[in-house]
């Protein structure tokens, strides 16, 4: 099927089988490999992307379902400079192997864009949909708490 959508600000199109997940489409058709697959059954959150500004698991969506939508992956969040959220991840050592990291960054970005005042409990609650095997989550939560400041007044809600 022919699909057309907006990926990281660029209009893209592809011919995909209906069974192609959004995650596979982003990775294979468009070479945006920052979206990672760790479970492919909707538990780990590594494949989280933003669809129309909302965090979703791209392994639990079909590519044909984003026809006409705006999709943003981790690659679409920053240019050459790290965003404050990414810099906070680095500062707090909120990643080790880095495989789950894109999913945490996209999820935290969506959360803070909508709720820049999220408290620690809310952050932990939201991030509990993402699995990390390396960090024990403590530094991830610290990083997200610190990054809140940069989202305040951004008015993206």
């Amino acid at each position, binding site marked *: 099927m022919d699909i057309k959508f907006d990926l990281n600000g660029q209009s893209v199109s592809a011919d995909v*089988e209906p*069974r*192609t997940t959004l995650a596979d489409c982003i*990775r294979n058709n468009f070479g*945006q*490999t*920052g*979206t*990672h*697959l*760790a*479970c*492919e*059954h909707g*538990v*780990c959150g*590594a494949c989280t992307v933003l669809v129309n500004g909302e965090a979703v698991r791209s392994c639990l969506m079909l590519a044909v379902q984003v026809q006409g939508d705006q999709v943003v*992956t*981790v*690659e679409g*969040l*920053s240019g050459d400079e*790290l965003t404050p959220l*990414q810099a906070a*991840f*680095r*500062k707090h*050592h909120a*990643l*080790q*192997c*880095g*495989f*789950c*990291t*894109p999913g945490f*960054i996209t999820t935290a970005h969506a959360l803070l864009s909508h709720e820049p005042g999220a408290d*620690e409990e809310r*952050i*932990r*609650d939201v*991030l*509990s*949909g*993402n*699995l*990390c*095997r*390396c*960090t*024990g*989550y*403590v*530094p*991830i*939560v610290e990083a997200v708490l610190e990054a809140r400041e940069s989202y305040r007044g951004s008015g993206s809600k």
Partner: protein
Amino acid sequence: MKSFNSYIGRPMERVEDLRMVRGRGTYVADVNRPNQLYAVILRSSVAHGIIRSIDSSEALALPGVRRVLTAKDLGSKVPVIPLRLQPLPQLEPFHQPVLADEKVRYVGEPVALVIADSAAIAEDALERIVLDIEPLPAVANRSQAEAKRAVLFEEHGSNVAITWSAFRGNADEAFKTADYVRRETFKVQRHAAMFMEPRGFVAEWDEAAGKLTVWGAAKTAWHNRRTLAAQLGLALEAVDLIEVDVGGGFGSRGEFYPEDYLIPAAARIVGRPVKWTEDRREHIMSANHARDVECDVEFAVSRDGRFIGLRGQIWADIGAYIRTNGSVGPRNVAQFMSGPYCIEHIDLKSSMLTTNKTPCGTYRGPGRYETDFIRERMIDLAAQDLKIDRVELRRRNLVADAQMPYPLASITPYDSSTELDSGDYHAVFDRCLKEFGWDERTRLRGQLIDGYYHGLAIGSFIEGGAAGPKEEARLVLETDGALSVYIGSSSVGQGLETIMAQIAADAMEMSYDKITIRHGSTSYVKDGYGAYHSRSTVMGGSAILLAADKLKDLIRKTAGARLGCKAEQVVIDGEQASFGGEHLAFAGLSGVPLEVEAEFFNKKYTWAYGTQAAHVAVDPGTGHVKVIDFISVEDVGRMINPLTLHGQAIGSIVQGLGGAFLEHLVYDDEGQLLTGSFADYLMPTASDFPNIRSITVELKPCPNNPLGAKGAGEGGLIPVGGVMANAVADALSHLNVQPMELPLSPPRLWQLVEQAETARSAD
């Protein structure tokens, strides 16, 4: 040595993060080669059986399917996976063939390989392969193994593959005269490393050059190259294994698995690059499992609270085959049960039982997690029986500084004698109590507050590291003054590039950002050993120090020739070589790169050590345990990067909590794996364990390496199961609830409470 730099010991932000936080890392699933095909693997759904036939005709008829490979396509003898560690000849019968020939022995065992134009088509083809397996009775646990419900390897005649024996002193004599002996049985459940990035390979065979290139190496690339080259009948130089970013290992990833042979072999057979990306379902049934230990042990203590002896039998359920490092866990349970305590008399047997389950291998703190659960539980039970405060009992028995080096139990049949190298165990123990606020919290013990009973526990541990025999580093001062460091160590996500750059920068007195670390690929150095047994920093870092000395000699020699002086007259300072007021910058020092190699040899393990304390609250109605506070204090000799080390400790502890409360690979009695997804295999999430603290100290540098560092990164996890079980027992002390089995799942704790209440009301 004049030291201008002090990168070592500083919390340097990681080099790796710059790509990883932006989604620019390159993991093996991100590697693609022109014209590549995709492989998927048909795995046995039967735990134990005889392969009658495999009919691939319908699969091959599907458009886009290129090839189906079975054992028959691999030549007259199917290659087997050799052992990397403890390669005893008596274990050869238990080696795994890379594709099941004749028999299948576990659910998930590779039976055939489908190669197709896409992974989806290959999966379509899997469903069309008709696999006829005649089922045999399965062996799914210790009792079935011992009763010989079936025997996995008929020619061996028993499901006991081998028995390890750890011994010290004269246990039988000591137990005869001991004031106090307690005998108990314990169980630690099967769980696994479960790193986040599934395994994968991309293999490419260049027919013209006779060269094989494989992306996706991890942990032990050089060993795996030797194995693969031998299996394929290729020269070592004809095989190149390339390590890209690796999404976690924890002991499991990078060992030689069937796919390490199958994917390269398939690329050679079909003459096109072949890509395989493991999915989570197959990962859970194919990558190494771990733990799965039962034991029946006796602990002898004197009336005044001196530990005297440990004696007993351990059974390690190792699954269907013994793979590369399958003996490490079962051996460690026996050899390291005494931990950081003086226990003079030890007689522990550890039998490895073959069962129709996924083979076991190492997972962070292999054998140590299990054995610390057993030991720390025994200590609390003894304290209760002898009416000695459990803090005091531990303090009385920790190995003292003056007793170092302190030999641990010897082990047969593959000797690996070792001794605790150095440490002030009491100082760390007391620091932990103080940081935790033990005395202030004791009033909460057993208290019921808002529906939760509160309890405390403390436990100490040792963490072995720096396995030999050696590691290699090659340093190249490029003509532009940059330094390239090639190293045999591997990265599994622990920040190797950053740490090695810190070490190299200090050693060369260079700026950190002029240094590039290249690691883990077999073309970089002649030989490498990799990332296991907490060894990368100590072994690779020490090799860099040796190489740096050589490189500085070469720089002096080169500069001396140009400056007209003797090499030893040249002073190296601030990335320049100087003599008598003349300076030559490293950049442009020579028209060709200056290159040196060095190897660091080591026979002695490093022994980091520490103490952990925990405060928990238990809801007797649901069996839920809240971890109110958890602290770990560890001495690692010397910290290279406090930021990454702290991260290792916290992450390791949370993995240990997963093993203590959540994670369990469950099989039924017929050997079917029942926890085949992340919906059923439960790992900690961000909301489970928010209160974890870690403190690292540098009290006693390791005397056996130039860095003074001790391997770290596994330690945090090692005592967690024991500490948690003791804390739960403390919280429920009014019921005398004594957990003897992990995980401490809500249903298990609820059952223990129910049983205790029933027993109490019957009194």
